[in-house]
């Protein structure tokens, strides 16, 4: 702890041995003491940190449904306050040191108060489905097994895989009427008479029930995510994963094995060269037991068969198909096995590439990850997370027929990115750039004399698992994406609303690793250390790659995260909140607009057209069309340079575009509140100004909260100017005149303007025939596709069928197109390629939707022309390989080159 505190003291960008810090030693220390970040205690011995705080589920009311009230001026002002308060904690501190303000005891105390409140919230149960059943005391059920539970409640219980929770196994016939249909087998028995029960205390509680005269009340919990493992807990845990999870992974036949095959280590090692094996114990791990086969094959194939080393094997064990992947590292062999049901061959190949990437990123090389001392627990939990992400949590619910749901084609390939309007993109990039620039001149003029702790190499921003922006090198992005995805951070940020997430750890960047291999490079990058700081808030995740060494301070020894940089990243996210990006993205993700995909495929049939016409005659649709028309005009103006982009016709309304109607209602609301906004602003300023009539130094906490950065300077100047004047109005006017030029205000107004979502089309033809698309830039590690929840938005059986077909067809097409890409990459390949396949650059498949699915969508069998749709993939090899996959209705032929062209306009 002591060593950490000393670290904090030079965490500010200014080095400690300069005059002002010395002069204000006391205040500085008191400052750092008071602002110990809440994640402080979670920093591990090795300086790594995983801190996650999830927002209470109740708060996450879906913004999708409510009109975007938050966009109006009053709310933005409120946002402003919030922003100041968070920003201040970083910059304010420096200010205080500089100007020897009083310490922030009040602030830290309020913060603690906040903490307490949220703790309470956290302990409150999120709204789970609970079912309460009262069993009459007078009823005694006949139990064959003479079991107390059966006698009392008429049901039998079993212990859940976690060894603690009790689940309903069976109902006695007499008791069935009491429970069904409300309670079903597999539900958890959570409480009896309001007391939580588990396998340990059940007997005691039963005893109490027997003694109690009242009829017992049973609370059951619906197992919503019974098979899901709590990722949050897994991420946070510093110890090895629990036995129950290890057991679960063993059952699922997930396995990792690292074998060292050179003679010296083979003989010196107790386990015959096995350096790592998970899940353990060794003798129960099938990969361990059969490792001889893989090792032999790995030696044999290149030496005696003249083939390359094996990449994957499909094996059958206990009637389960398992894909075993091979990764050779010099003489060593890394084997990872995935059950085929969840991770098929295609996914396994992609997954192993990501795992290798991840290991190299985290430990420098595959070998060092398994030879690093005292690393077994870390690796255990890392692989547990990998398997949980890829296998356990991607298991389908029973309703889905047990099919895997999450391992989509898109997820396996690259970072899923979305097209954003240019203005929004600029906002996002702007915010990140500000972080990366690390320009602290606004806090101290003396900036040249200080050395910084880290250089920000680049960062990338995700929202709900979608990449919004990346300022990283391609390889770094791929690695960071693998890191975030396989650790489940992206998933977590998608499913839950994060209150705070801070993850810090040392990494080994690709550039440096490569450099080690070919020594003597003229343009060497400095020998430094690199750290990845991941900060999350809401559904945002911001990962920042930082360098220590070189032009910045050398990091020596254990390096915990610096609160300053954590706060910098947090304030970067905060900035995005200020701009209202969080609200904006919700509507953007729901708008299905860039480019628009047809989520009601049945409208493309003759019969469907009829339905649509009837629907569009309904009165409520008039509003929709009118608002859309407005947006169309505004958009055309802006994009007149790219007129090729088809602007969506106003009649193409879809179920999912509720948000559009919202814009309609919001529009008028906005106008109203806008006129009242100045008043609000006036009053707020009034309050603060009346207090600070004296000097700046005695500023109250309230007023200071709104001052920081450049803006703070400006406002302070304003205040100084106006201190002579008595009229509040006068001041107000001036502050409005200058203050409204503030960047953040401009930002806000921009975002407001583009709230009018315009649907764009990339397919030819009068109607929108596009169902889905994937645009993959494998070199960059990025792909563009409709948002991940597009199926949920569509809520349409036919659409889901089409997308499912699209995904499995894409796998095949992708495999085929790889021949061409590989050929183009190296013109003299070591292995001869099939000369026919390398020439293929486009592959298409035409599918027919089955009749039963059509009839579920209301297309009657009578007037049923076959419903046909294409899945087409094409590779564009210049300048670097890009692949475009398209799924569209057969009625309008499409040219993929043209579609790719139009799509490029949207970026």
């Amino acid at each position, binding site marked *: 702890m002591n060593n950490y505190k000393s670290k904090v003291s030079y965490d500010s960008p200014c080095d400690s041995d300069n005059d002002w810090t010395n002069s204000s030693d006391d205040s500085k220390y008191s400052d750092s003491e008071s602002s110990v970040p809440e994640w402080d205690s979670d920093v591990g011995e090795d300086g790594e940190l995983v801190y996650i705080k999830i927002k209470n589920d109740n708060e996450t009311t879906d913004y999708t449904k409510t009109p975007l009230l938050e966009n109006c001026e009053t709310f933005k002002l409120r946002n402003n306050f919030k922003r100041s308060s968070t920003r201040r904690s970083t910059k304010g501190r420096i200010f205080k040191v500089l100007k020897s303000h009083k310490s922030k005891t009040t602030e830290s105390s309020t913060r603690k108060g906040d903490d307490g409140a949220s703790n309470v919230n956290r302990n409150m149960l999120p709204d789970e489905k609970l079912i309460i059943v009262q069993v009459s005391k007078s009823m005694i059920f006949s139990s064959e097994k003479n079991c107390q539970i059966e006698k009392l409640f008429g049901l039998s219980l079993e212990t859940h895989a976690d060894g603690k929770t009790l689940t309903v196994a069976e109902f006695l016939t007499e008791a069935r009427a009491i429970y069904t249909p409300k309670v079903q087998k597999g539900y958890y028995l959570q409480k009896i008479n309001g007391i939580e029960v588990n396998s340990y205390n059940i007997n005691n509680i039963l005893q109490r029930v027997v003694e109690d005269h009242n009829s017992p009340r049973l609370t059951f919990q619906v197992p919503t995510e019974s098979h899901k493992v709590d990722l949050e807990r897994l991420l946070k845990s510093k110890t090895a994963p629990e036995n129950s999870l290890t057991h679960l992974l063993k059952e699922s036949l997930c396995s990792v094995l690292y074998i060292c095959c050179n003679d010296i280590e083979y003989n010196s090692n107790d386990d015959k060269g096995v350096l790592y094996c998970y899940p353990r114990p060794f003798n129960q791990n099938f990969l361990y037991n059969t490792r001889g086969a893989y090792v032999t094959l790995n030696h044999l194939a290149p030496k005696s068969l003249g083939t390359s080393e*094996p990449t994957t094997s499909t094996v059958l064990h206990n009637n389960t198909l398992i894909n075993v992947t091979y990764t050779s590292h010099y003489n060593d062999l890394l084997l990872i096995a995935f059950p085929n049901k969840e991770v098929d061959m295609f996914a396994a190949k992609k997954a192993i590439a990501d795992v290798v990437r991840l290991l190299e990123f985290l430990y420098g090389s595959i070998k060092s990850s398994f030879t690093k001392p005292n690393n077994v627990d870390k690796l255990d939990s890392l692989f547990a997370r990998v398997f949980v992400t890829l296998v356990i949590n991607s298991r389908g619910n029973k309703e889905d027929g047990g099919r895997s749901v999450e391992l989509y084609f898109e997820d396996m390939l690259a970072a899923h990115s979305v097209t954003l309007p240019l203005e929004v993109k600029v906002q996002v990039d702007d915010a990140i750039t500000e972080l990366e620039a690390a320009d602290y001149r606004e806090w101290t003029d003396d900036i040249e004399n200080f050395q910084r702790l880290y250089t920000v190499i680049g960062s990338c921003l995700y929202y709900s698992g979608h990449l919004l922006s990346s300022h990283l090198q391609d390889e770094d992005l791929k690695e960071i994406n693998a890191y975030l995805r396989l650790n489940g951070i992206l998933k977590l940020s998608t499913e839950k609303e994060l209150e705070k997430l801070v993850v810090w750890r040392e990494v080994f960047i690709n550039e440096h690793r490569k450099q080690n291999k070919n020594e003597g490079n003229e343009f060497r990058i400095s020998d430094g250390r690199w750290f990845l700081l991941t900060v999350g808030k809401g559904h945002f995740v911001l990962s920042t790659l930082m360098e220590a060494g070189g032009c910045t301070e050398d990091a020596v020894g254990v390096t915990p995260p610096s609160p300053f940089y954590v706060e910098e990243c947090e304030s970067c996210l905060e900035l995005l909140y200020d701009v209202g990006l969080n609200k904006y993205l919700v509507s953007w993700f729901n708008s299905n607009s860039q480019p628009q995909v047809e989520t009601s495929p049945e409208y493309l049939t003759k019969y469907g057209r009829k339905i649509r016409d009837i629907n569009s005659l309904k009165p409520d649709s008039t509003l929709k069309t009118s608002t859309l028309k407005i947006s169309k005009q505004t958009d055309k103006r802006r994009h007149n340079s790219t007129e090729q982009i088809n602007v969506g016709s106003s009649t193409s309304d879809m179920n999912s575009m509720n948000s559009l109607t919202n814009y309609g209602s919001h529009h008028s609301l906005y106008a109203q509140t806008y006129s009242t906004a100045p008043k609000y602003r006036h009053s707020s300023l009034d309050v603060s100004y009346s207090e600070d009539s004296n000097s700046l130094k005695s500023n109250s906490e309230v007023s200071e909260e709104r001052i920081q950065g450049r803006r703070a300077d400006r406002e302070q100047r304003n205040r100084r100017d106006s201190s002579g004047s008595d009229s509040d109005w006068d001041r107000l006017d001036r502050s409005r005149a200058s203050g409204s030029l503030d960047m953040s205000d401009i930002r806000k107004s921009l975002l407001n303007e583009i709230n009018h979502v315009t649907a764009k089309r990339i397919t030819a033809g009068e109607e929108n025939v596009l169902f889905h698309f994937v645009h993959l830039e494998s070199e960059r590690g990025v792909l563009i596709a409709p948002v991940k929840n597009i199926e949920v938005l569509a809520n349409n059986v036919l659409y889901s069928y089409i997308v499912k077909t699209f995904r499995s067809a894409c796998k095949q097409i992708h495999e085929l197109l790889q021949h061409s890409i590989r050929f183009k990459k190296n013109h003299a390949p070591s292995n001869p390629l099939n000369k026919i396949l390398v020439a293929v650059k486009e592959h298409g498949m035409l599918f027919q939707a089955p009749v039963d699915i059509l009839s579920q969508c209301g297309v009657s069998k009578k007037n049923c022309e076959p419903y046909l749709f294409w899945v087409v993939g094409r590779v564009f090899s210049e300048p670097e390989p890009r692949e475009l996959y398209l799924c569209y209705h057969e009625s309008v032929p499409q040219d993929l080159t043209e579609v790719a062209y139009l799509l490029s306009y949207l970026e």
Partner: protein
Amino acid sequence: MSVVVIAVATESGVPIFSRKRGNNESIQFSTIASLHGINMFSKCHNLSMLNTQVDNGTILWKEYCKSVTLIGIATGGLECDLELLLSCVHDAMVFCIGKKELETLKNIDQIKRDLRQCYPILDYLLESLDPNALSSPLPTLVLDLIQSILCPQAQQLQQALDNYAESVTGRWACLIIHGHLVATSSDFYELDPREARLMLLLASAQDGAPLRDTPVYLPQMSPNVAFRAVTCKLLADVYILVVCGATPALSQIDEIVLQCWEGYASIIKEAKLVHPRNFPMSLTFEPCVLGLLIININKRRCVFSRHLHLSSQKGRGMSGAHRMDILRTFYVTSARDLAPELKLKDGNHKEVNDEIGNMCETYWCSEYHKCHAQRSGNILCCALYASTVQLHTIRLITSQILQDLSTNKDVYW
């Protein structure tokens, strides 16, 4: 490209044979032993290695009859269904020596010797994977389909075949021209398509002998009791094959053949002229169609043609053999998905991963050509087009071809 098939006695580990095609070195004994060892070792641990992928290739173990393990290794960008190949190899082994022998493996040396006679068939099977073999006189192109010629004379020839089969007290007979099936007796389709395919390979492997009988075991129909397959050369490259019992003797058959086929010489000659176009002259094709592969899915018969146009303009830049290879590769990699019933069925433990249902058309565009496949009922048409033709035109032409095939009277499968 290279492909190797190795047969090992499962229990003893004695290598039975090893056939290869392509530019690889032959596999050494120690390697065979190691490969077999891998399989045996994993079996001890209740684990079976089904399939191993290497860069650009596959290694496959497959155990048949609980006695023989076949190991297949394909490399070098060879596009093939290795599992299908191994099961065909197994069929061929049964075809030659019977299932019982193969199961008991009593006298391994004897069996090794007996299996030598099926080497020509095995080599034909391997050849059918090799794109370089296309220029050979009797190319076999696809593993599991019977290459055929569609000719207007087929109906007449069928009567002659029926008549012939009856006279030799046989059941199944067929006429083979240039290794292609031209006509069959009416009950020939009682044979499993894969048995029929082996018959054809047997005829091809006769090396021009005028009359010969071979004992054959039918892998599906009669794996333990041998039939007698009599092949007779009528004209150059024209064979008739009949499966019959022990009588009549070969000398008698010689006479019967003369009686039965004397009058058909001219018809056979006419039918022979259909090769290499392989389609009746009444079927015409658009000039942009460069090659064609028509598959009758139920009968597992296929017709390849690259000489669709009489005035064959040369110098189109693509050799005929290359066209065949493109069509073949297109069929094996993509178009076969249009006919899921053609897939191997015995993979009962296979969890079907990429079950893409209801595909009805598929196409490839490459820099030099386009391929398009469409299915209509029982007929699958894969066509090779010039790269300049637009997709919508292609679709139109393909469906036109399919329609022509179903309406043309000269088309008799």
